[in-house]
């Protein structure tokens, strides 16, 4: 009896594996064929559910991707017929016939034309990340239709109820339908901003995995790995876009430090104290290679490339002391020019403190405090406390570290700050 349950669980994982590999291509192809993203996503999901029921019972078909596509396509066509029964048949019959021919002609003949599929998947990526959608919907939709994650997986990753994820997807599909968005790659004029929106979604997914904003989990490597997979997919779809490679570089370089970011007791370890031999050096190589690809396109460095270059400076240094902090200061100055933000200013101040001493850094931090831009941000008093501590101003340092601990929602970060305050 345990055997039967195991077999069912194993088949389920197999269906999920096929889905993860195929879903983007299935939804993308269907959307082009039937011209309706919402319907395409619905019928693809229904085919997935059918597979969960039928494959454990009847066995996994020899070509599972083709099976899913064919079933989804049939469902799309059945739906169209049902709708048309309600419509004026005479008005739609010609269109229905030509659409049926299109449907019949295209989805059965696997293997698919790779270039056509790539174009469709790229359209799908742009649709899922369309600026008309709220950020949470873009994220849920991208993970679901491009990444092939199930609603349950997404809800686990973001620690929200399944119904919340479902709502985000349903609402997003409604918004897309209501706006009648064309299924296309944006025109040259808006390509840059639309690609930026796509890359930003991937970046946010990674950040969610990299550092949980609240709760006991310091990081969720699965979600970060998923974001890296998405970045690789997008990099392959738009190989001439430096920002796509630069984002991948940044994510690989950041993720290379995962193993060193917590100690044996699960406590977070700050960059300067990390055991650098625990960094994933293959991943560092992949990140540097991606940054080199971005640079080789010869269109200068954007925000992702600059951040990747900063991460690279850390990655290639043997220790905090031997890090080229002056280079990092320069990179932060360039980053401030492109994306001015108080958080970048704070990081710049930290780099200045490392390059030129804590007093120089403190001066910049104090200017930030005076501006009021980061009030309520726990790292501002956190950094100020660190710098004061290094300058021997212990009482002030302790007060700042305690203030930082009170502001953070991350329990482990709070513990570290409290311990540092005690040590002052």
């Amino acid at each position, binding site marked *: 009896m345990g055997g039967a349950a195991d077999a069912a669980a*194993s088949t389920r994982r*197999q269906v*999920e594996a096929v889905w993860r*590999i195929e879903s983007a291509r299935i939804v993308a192809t269907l959307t082009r064929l039937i011209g309706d993203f919402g319907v395409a996503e619905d019928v693809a999901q229904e085919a997935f559910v059918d597979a969960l029921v039928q494959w454990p019972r009847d066995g996994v078909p020899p070509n599972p991707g083709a099976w899913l596509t064919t079933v989804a396509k049939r469902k799309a066509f059945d739906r169209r017929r049902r709708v048309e029964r309600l419509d004026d048949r005479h008005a739609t019959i010609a269109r229905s016939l030509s659409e049926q021919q299109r449907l019949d002609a295209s989805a059965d003949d696997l293997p698919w034309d790779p270039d056509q599929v790539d174009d469709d998947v790229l359209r799908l990526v742009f649709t899922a990340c369309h600026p008309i959608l709220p950020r949470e919907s873009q994220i849920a939709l991208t993970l679901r239709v491009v990444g092939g994650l199930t609603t349950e997986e997404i809800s686990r990753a973001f620690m929200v109820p399944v119904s919340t994820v479902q709502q985000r997807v349903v609402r997003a599909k409604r918004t897309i339908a209501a706006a009648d968005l064309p299924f296309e790659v944006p025109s040259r004029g808006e390509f840059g901003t639309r690609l930026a929106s796509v890359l930003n979604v991937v970046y946010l997914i990674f950040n969610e995995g990299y550092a949980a904003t609240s709760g006991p989990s310091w990081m969720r490597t699965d979600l970060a790995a998923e974001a890296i997979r998405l970045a690789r997919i997008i990099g392959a*779809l738009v190989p001439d876009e430096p920002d796509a490679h630069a984002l991948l570089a940044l994510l690989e370089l950041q993720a290379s430090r995962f193993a060193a970011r917590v100690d044996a007791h699960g406590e977070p370890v700050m960059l300067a104290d990390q055991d650098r031999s625990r960094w994933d050096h293959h991943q560092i190589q992949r990140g540097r290679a991606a940054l080199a690809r971005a640079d*080789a396109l010869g269109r200068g460095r954007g925000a992702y490339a600059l951040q990747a270059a900063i991460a690279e400076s850390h990655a290639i240094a043997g220790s905090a002391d031997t890090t080229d902090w002056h280079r990092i200061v320069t990179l932060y100055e360039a980053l401030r020019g492109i994306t001015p933000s108080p958080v970048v200013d704070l990081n710049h101040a930290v780099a200045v403190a490392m390059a030129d001493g804590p007093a120089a850094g403190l001066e910049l931090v104090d200017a930030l405090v005076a501006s009021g831009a980061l009030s309520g941000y726990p790292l501002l008093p956190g950094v100020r406390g660190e710098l004061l501590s290094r300058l021997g101003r212990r009482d002030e340092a302790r007060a700042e570290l305690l203030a930082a601990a009170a502001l953070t929602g991350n329990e482990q970060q709070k513990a570290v700050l409290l311990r540092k305050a005690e040590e002052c």
Partner: protein
Amino acid sequence: MKYMLIMRTPVEMTLPEDFDFTEIINAMGAYNESLIKAGVLLGGEGLAPAEEGFVVDFDSTPPIVTDGPYAEAKELFTGFWIIQTSTKEEAAEWAKRCPLGPGTRLEVRRVTEIEEFDQDNEYIQKEYEWREQLGTDQPVQG
């Protein structure tokens, strides 16, 4: 998780007269491209014929070196891929898509992570350092 897909071919496998290498190269190229586009490929290599290799046998001391292929082998390793997937089943799905024919096999093995071993062991500690040196000493590919 990382998995190694190890390609194995029978020793006595002979190629038919009209064997089309271009077709194989194209099929493998398309497969590799699909792995890259899916964001799962980390690396891989094809191996030169076993006749160019040699075997080091540790039955005696010092070990005996003989020209390849290994006389008792029934199958030869001919290449490998390393892929990164979220489950074993996903690795199996990718393996099944490899354009290989009857007689050949893919053995799929999970790549161990160094974190799985006794972290207090002196050589495990050293291995981190070795990995660091190996990692940073290699040139970055553009």
